[in-house]
């Protein structure tokens, strides 16, 4: 190999390394999950504004940055590739996001703007969070229901497991069969006993097996 070859190889390697280092860490061409069921209609808004809709059972891939929303007569179900199932109640909208941390699995994040979601993790611990305007619910292995009211107040009911429920004023663990409220400008409230099963009753039609 001549010096010229070495130099060319070095340049190519440097360019390759440079390109590798500057590549975005958030690939947007791999689905993060699928919309699998909609009672009424689920609207999916891609990052470029293009819309896709699901009515009934299906398998519509979802990508980082998508916004999914239901109207006043719709509910929907989403299955994430990393083993989290999420149901959207009526008038619900959230954005699919993630957080990257070095040497750690990606944290799947739902930014819940309005409405109500039920979520359940399957197959071991997950890195999963739901952000609301005033609080964030972070889970590993759990089942919970989270509702955002018009003023941003967020109501968390834990059906099974532990949810770390945090506002900018403090974070507390919320456990099975308890409820906590997140309000702007305050810590989440102390957990109180709740009928957790009732909190997810609205998901029954979505979760029932196909007839």
């Amino acid at each position, binding site marked *: 190999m001549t010096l010229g070859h070495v130099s060319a190889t070095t340049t190519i390697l440097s360019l390759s390394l440079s390109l590798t*280092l*500057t590549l*975005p*860490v*958030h690939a947007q061409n791999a689905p993060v999950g699928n919309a699998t069921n909609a009672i009424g209609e689920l609207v999916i808004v891609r990052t470029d504004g293009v819309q896709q809709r699901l009515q009934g059972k299906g398998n519509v891939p979802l990508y980082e940055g998508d916004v999914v929303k239901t109207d006043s007569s719709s509910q929907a179900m989403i299955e994430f590739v990393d083993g989290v199932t999420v149901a959207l109640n009526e008038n619900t909208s959230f954005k699919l*996001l*993630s*957080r*990257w*941390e*070095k040497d750690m699995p990606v944290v799947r*994040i739902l930014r819940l703007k309005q409405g109500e979601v039920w979520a359940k993790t399957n197959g071991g611990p997950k890195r999963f*969070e739901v*952000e609301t*305007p*005033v*609080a*964030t619910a*972070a889970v590993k292995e759990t089942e919970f229901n989270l509702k955002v009211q018009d003023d941003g107040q967020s109501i968390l009911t834990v059906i099974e497991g532990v949810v770390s429920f*945090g*506002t*900018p*004023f*403090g*974070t*507390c*663990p919320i456990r099975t069969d308890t409820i906590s409220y997140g309000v*702007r*400008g305050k*810590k*989440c409230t102390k957990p109180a006993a709740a009928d957790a099963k009732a909190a997810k009753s609205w998901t029954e039609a979505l979760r029932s097996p196909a007839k």
Partner: protein
Amino acid sequence: MRPSSYYRLHSLLIASLAMTFAGCADSLQPSKIGSYALKQDTVQSIPPRIYVANESTNDVSVIDATTFQPVGTIPSLNHSTHDLAVSRDGRRLYASNLASGRVSVIDTVKRETIASIYTGDRCHVVALSNDDSQLWVANIGENTISIIDTKTFRILGTIPVGKGPTGLTFSHDGRFAFVSGQGDKTVGVVDTASHQIVKSIPVGANPHFMVVARDGHVWGVNTGQNDVYVLDPETHEKVGSFVVGDKPQQIAFAYKGTTGPLAYVTVGSLNKVIGLAGDPKELKIVDEIAVGEGPNGIWSNQEGTRLFVAHDKGNEIRVIDTGTGQTIATVPVGRKPIRVVVSR
């Protein structure tokens, strides 16, 4: 039992009890949001560094703040790296990335990006709370402030603010955050205890960068009317303004010999840094320093004797001795350097 043994046992019992109750407290009480934990035996001081956000190369240049020699470059792993905030201990650097809508978290010891957090569309400026426990991020495209817990990197809340938030700073006592809104031509005063906007102060066209002076006054630039303005920290009223020229960019405070501190403003169209002094109601120019092409970011050293000026057209940092107005070092950096900060 010998007294020494008794005291050892007694101490162990107290320690055990303390640990037990600490565990209970952790599990029952809301955990305090604090800055990231560091083992005491691993804490070492880091020499002061100059960090420069390069918007067109998506990275951060690192320069030794004592020798002014380049130390390295840190890829932000995002796009359009714009603003920076460095923690008081110098171990963490946070960079906003306009095009990605994400904040890069940088470990300054390892000089690498360790996390990427989506905050919102066109995230623009970042500011650390006074205890470094929270990072506030202004998202121009969503008219919001995102609040990041710097320990967990979780976004714990979002505050709706005025249109086009482009400047952000905290009061000395931490009770208020000031947010400039380009669309509203105002500065919103956010009560940090309630997260409510308690006042909206008209300041002028296209308010942008903001900073708090050592005396607590809040300074800002209006890129739409070529002036700087000053807000009173107690009354939250605009108490002064001064036209400096086309494209006023950022402000830092430093001394010119025995005079000062002066508010040094980078003025992009003039290729100058202008030093203002006096009562905020009667500001006057007391220093003018010719610099390179497109001065933008500016920072001063702790002593207030050096200015570090980023040039977004010249792609360089100039180190200026404020006593003489002379450039004592010029350091090439990445393309379109916007913001410069220096660790303590």
